[in-house]
């Protein structure tokens, strides 16, 4: 039995097709096509959640994606769990496990309900005023408790095993919304021959036809017509119909994002199917047919389970065959709610009465109500309700005051009117105008190639909206060049013409209505909160929104924005258009992270760059670190070694025999042309004219403001050819910097730049035995110290392949860097590595590279510098030519702040206790006993244990650092203060004799 409130013969679901699911541990039978909400309502279950702040019992309010209350956790299995699922959207599948949220220990008995009693302390904006005292209580009591209590729903702990897909699509016409207007537009555009995509968020097309039993199109009931038209459209080669698909974002140049829910409604999804699919659509023309959203009446107690939208009651009855109660009250300002009463009455449900704030509702609906014997109370308001876990009464008064009349109900449906859904239009950056007569905002000025049709454009009359949409579809198709015959437009009619509608609180409810008249259900925002915000001085609607959190929940104010605006305008004494609406933002409804990420997860999140020698390093047992997108060998632990042991061994080995290191990730740029030297003169601080072919030099590159931007050794291969190197991380930005100047500042220079980072494999061999190691493999070059001194470069052959050999070192030893074409890198490494090991050397990684260079005081741009150091600050002022009349940064260096004293300068630090290793980033002070906040002189930029020196070493930037050499400074840490002596930055081989071996 699919529920005692399922009415035989009503609805469109098939009684024989059933599915069982559980809600809070209790099992229910649903019909295929039920949502969780309709299935629960069929069994008379209205209590579906607890509200965010006050933990008030709540039921479902809508039958669609605008649902604010009935948010549930839906699980397939331990890993496939989704919190905050709207019960009015999620279709039931066999075996689904549903649990309610935000309640302990149970929905019906929730200790959080105490918040409701304490609600005077939780008025809007309470976050800014409470939990202030005592100050210490914040860290240990208030914050942890608030964090525990906050939020709706619990995130799953298991990784998401599903996969998500992504497609790009181009079309002539994108129709957003598959109701009567959308289908009509798609029919015209499709018949004309345009490429059309029609998208609707519901499982079937039809929109309002789901609930509006009075609609007919071309003589057929509208719902049937919609299914048939949809099938004809889908059969066309030039039309794609996507259901269960939400257009959630409208971006620049008619780029619209769609989220298609592929498997969430299926009990056993196909294994290969993605759970969701992101469509990124570029459309020549967009037709927005997004309809209108019903809003609720605002009165005290309007949030009890059983109080819901009138059209939701109609949808549950006419589509799902479910009666939402057996004694239903109606409170309305609009004619459409009457049709809900008629449908329920005709299905055998008692209508307790229709309360209408208007003195004169529509004549036709009044007549029908009379004919059905339904009492209508005009000019009256519902001022409160009764009931705890279910509404059980409504209290009615005349507008002008008077006694309350309490009427028993077990459900109460309300309608304050219909708000055109202008979200997509607004996201397209169009401007709205306020239609004062109908109290609504409508599209006005378009900035993109789109058009709004139907209810979202203010065209409510059903025959007019079909014609308007059909015409728009034809126009859009023609504009795209389609020439087919569109034939005739459908003709639609409806039983009643609707009128009415209001925003804000009904008269007679009083300005200071005690109790809670909810405008935003999900964030528990009441009418009085808006008034409080205005009293507190919030005058902008954006401030009122954030102060009260109205419209900031996952439903984004679909029901509440207009009410909030009306109440704010009244409180401010301003007109509605003057106060205005807050900005509409994507996504229109929540989108899962998986859909956005698609396949960009795990290993595919970012491209991984590996050098040609990577596999060899892996085979040697290297542990890798990430340097940007690169994988670099960090250290090579021998069996039983931890990182420190490995690094210490590598450091000692390099300086006692030799080490071999993969430097392939460093950037390389080939600079070629008659003006190559002139160009490099402009890009670097150094003078390159006097660098002869066959020599290389360490270059410093600045930004125009004089700060160090990058560095690297530059080799001159010929008069017109330079082999430039950069830092690993800086390669692309240095190339970009050079191209910028070359293309746009110095285009007259005859020089060409080519990135060769990936074309050369670079192998460094460093240490006293370096020459012995490589010599047997080098052809065509005299490697003696006299013929090939430090900072030389030459073309030769290494292991029989063409190479560029640099004599240079970042370790401060006799050293060489072998550059061979990348494809030969692994094999050349094999040969050189074997030779290195044969003399007692070893492979070393980036950690050892860092330690060795720090022992020599060589800077690392981006670690010891941070974009605010000049060359002089960074100990490389010697690299700045004093003779050149122009280079990038020349003028910046002259700025007063860059030449004054008191700048931070890079120095060395030795800890008084040599075993203590400083932490990088630690702050440095002169007097450790000064009161806080202390005057900080600088911070530690690099810090290591040096096995070669038997002590810790560090580099730091310190105010007037060089004048403090010899002084003792202090590094205050959480548990201790470390004394340090300021030194220069070179700790090892100050004379540099090892380099020149």
């Amino acid at each position: 039995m699919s529920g005692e409130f399922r009415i035989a013969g009503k609805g469109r679901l098939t009684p024989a097709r059933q599915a069982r699911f559980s809600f809070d541990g209790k099992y229910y039978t649903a019909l295929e096509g039920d949502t969780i909400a309709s299935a629960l309502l069929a069994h008379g279950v209205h209590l579906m959640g607890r509200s965010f702040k006050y933990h008030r019992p709540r039921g479902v309010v809508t039958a669609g994606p605008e649902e604010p209350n009935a948010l549930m956790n839906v699980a397939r299995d331990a890993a496939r769990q989704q919190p905050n699922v709207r019960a009015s959207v999620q279709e039931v599948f066999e075996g689904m496990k549903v649990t309610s949220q935000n309640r302990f220990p149970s929905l019906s008995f929730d200790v959080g309900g105490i918040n409701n009693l304490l609600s005077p302390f939780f008025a809007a904006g309470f976050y800014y005023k409470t939990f202030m005292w005592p100050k210490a209580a914040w860290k240990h009591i208030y914050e942890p408790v608030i964090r525990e209590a906050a939020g709706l729903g619990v995130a799953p702990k298991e990784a998401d095993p599903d996969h998500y897909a992504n497609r790009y699509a181009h079309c002539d016409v994108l129709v957003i919304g598959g109701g009567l207007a959308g289908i009509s537009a798609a029919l015209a555009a499709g018949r004309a021959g345009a490429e059309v995509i029609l998208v609707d968020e519901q499982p079937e097309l039809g929109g309002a036809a789901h609930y509006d039993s009075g609609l007919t199109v071309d003589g057929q009931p509208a719902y049937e017509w919609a299914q048939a038209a949809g099938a004809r459209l889908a059969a066309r080669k030039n039309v794609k119909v996507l259901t269960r698909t939400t257009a959630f974002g409208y971006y620049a140049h008619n780029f619209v994002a769609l989220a298609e829910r592929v498997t969430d409604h299926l009990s056993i999804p196909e294994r290969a199917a993605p759970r969701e699919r992101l469509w990124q659509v570029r459309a020549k023309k967009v037709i927005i047919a997004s309809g209108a959203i019903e809003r609720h009446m605002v009165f005290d107690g309007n949030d009890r389970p059983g109080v819901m939208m009138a059209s939701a009651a109609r949808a549950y009855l006419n589509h799902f065959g479910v009666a939402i109660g057996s004694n239903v009250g109606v409170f309305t300002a609009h004619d459409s709610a009457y049709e809900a009463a008629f449908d329920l009455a005709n299905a055998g449900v008692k209508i307790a009465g229709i309360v209408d704030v208007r003195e004169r509702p529509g004549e036709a609906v009044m007549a029908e109500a009379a004919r059905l014997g339904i009492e209508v109370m005009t000019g009256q308001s519902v001022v409160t309700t009764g009931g705890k876990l279910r509404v059980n009464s409504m209290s009615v008064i005349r507008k002008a005051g008077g006694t309350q009349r309490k009427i028993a109900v077990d459900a109460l449906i309300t309608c304050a009117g219909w708000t055109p859904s202008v979200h997509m239009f607004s996201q397209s950056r169009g401007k709205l105008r306020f239609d004062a007569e109908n109290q609504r905002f409508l599209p006005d000025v378009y900035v993109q190639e789109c058009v709004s049709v139907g209810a979202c454009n203010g065209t409510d009359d059903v025959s007019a909206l079909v014609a308007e949409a059909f015409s728009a579809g034809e126009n859009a198709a023609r504009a795209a060049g389609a020439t087919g015959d569109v034939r005739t437009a459908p003709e639609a009619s409806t039983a009643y013409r609707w009128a009415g509608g209001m925003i804000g609180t009904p008269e007679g409810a009083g300005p200071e209505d005690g109790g809670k008249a909810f405008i935003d259900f999900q964030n528990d925002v009441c009418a009085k909160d808006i008034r409080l915000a205005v009293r507190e001085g919030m005058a902008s609607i954006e401030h009122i929104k954030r102060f009260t959190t109205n419209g900031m929940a996952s439903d984004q104010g679909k029901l509440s924005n207009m009410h909030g605006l009306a109440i704010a305008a009244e409180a401010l004494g301003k007109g509605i258009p003057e106060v205005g609406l807050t900005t509409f933002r994507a996504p229109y409804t929540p989108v899962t992270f998986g859909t956005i990420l698609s396949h960009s997860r795990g290993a595919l999140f970012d491209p991984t760059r590996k050098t040609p020698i990577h596999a060899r390093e892996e085979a040697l047992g290297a542990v890798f670190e990430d340097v940007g997108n690169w994988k670099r060998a960090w250290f090579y632990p021998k069996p039983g070694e931890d990182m420190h042991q490995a690094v210490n061994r590598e450091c000692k080995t390099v300086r006692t025999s030799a080490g071999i290191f993969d430097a392939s990730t460093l950037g390389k740029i080939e600079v070629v042309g008659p003006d190559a030297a002139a160009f490099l003169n402009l890009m670097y601080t150094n003078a390159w004219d006097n660098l002869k072919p066959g020599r290389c030099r360490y270059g410093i590159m600045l930004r125009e403001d004089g700060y160090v931007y990058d560095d690297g050794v530059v080799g001159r291969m010929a008069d017109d050819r330079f082999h430039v190197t950069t830092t690993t991380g800086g390669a692309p930005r240095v190339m970009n910097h050079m191209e910028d100047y070359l293309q746009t500042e110095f285009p007259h220079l005859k020089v060409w730049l080519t990135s060769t980072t990936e074309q050369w494999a670079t192998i460094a061999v460093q240490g006293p035995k370096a020459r012995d190691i490589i010599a047997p493999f080098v052809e065509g070059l005299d490697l003696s110290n006299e013929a090939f001194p430090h900072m030389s470069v030459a073309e030769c052959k290494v292991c029989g392949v063409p190479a560029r050999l640099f004599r240079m070192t970042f370790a401060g030893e006799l050293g060489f860097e072998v550059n061979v074409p990348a494809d030969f890198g692994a094999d050349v490494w094999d040969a050189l590595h074997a030779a290195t090991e044969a003399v007692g050397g070893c492979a070393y990684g980036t950690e050892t590279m860092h330690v060795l260079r720090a022992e020599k005081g060589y800077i690392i741009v981006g670690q010891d510098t941070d974009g605010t150091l000049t060359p002089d600050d960074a100990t490389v002022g010697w690299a700045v030519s004093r003779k050149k009349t122009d280079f990038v940064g020349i003028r910046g260096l002259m700025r007063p702040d860059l030449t004054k004293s008191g700048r931070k300068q890079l120095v060395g630090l030795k800890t008084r206790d040599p075993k203590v290793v400083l932490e990088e980033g630690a702050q440095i002070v002169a007097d450790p006993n000064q009161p806080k906040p202390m005057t900080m002189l600088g911070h530690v930029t690099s810090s290591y244990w040096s096995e070669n020196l038997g002590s810790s070493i560090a580099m730091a930037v310190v105010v007037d650092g060089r004048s403090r050499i010899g002084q003792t400074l202090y590094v205050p840490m959480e548990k201790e203060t470390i004394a340090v002596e300021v030194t220069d930055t070179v700790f090892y081989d100050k004379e540099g004799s090892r380099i020149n071996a």
Partner: protein
Amino acid sequence: MLLIHCPYCQEDRSELEFRAAGEAHIARPENIASISDEAFAEYFFMRDNPKGYIWERWRHFNGCGRFFNAVRHTVSDKFVVTYKAGEPKRSLESLGLGTTNAGGAK
């Protein structure tokens, strides 16, 4: 996602292929080593930020790699025109957009 017309490739390409490169038509001063602090600050730091038409540079980074100029409206994100590096600044008049860069959506 913007569509940007590369004047070198002569095609509309998605913004994913481009990098924004700041305000256009800012020439590096001649004899930059001898200009005043104020003139340097003006050159290096001061940039326009109009609610209206902006002259800016883009680079077709994942394409031909060239820098070029563009006129774009900062509210509607509509590109009015793109043109090659080195070409003179296009005036609003020459683009049929009146003479003053008044704000507001276009």
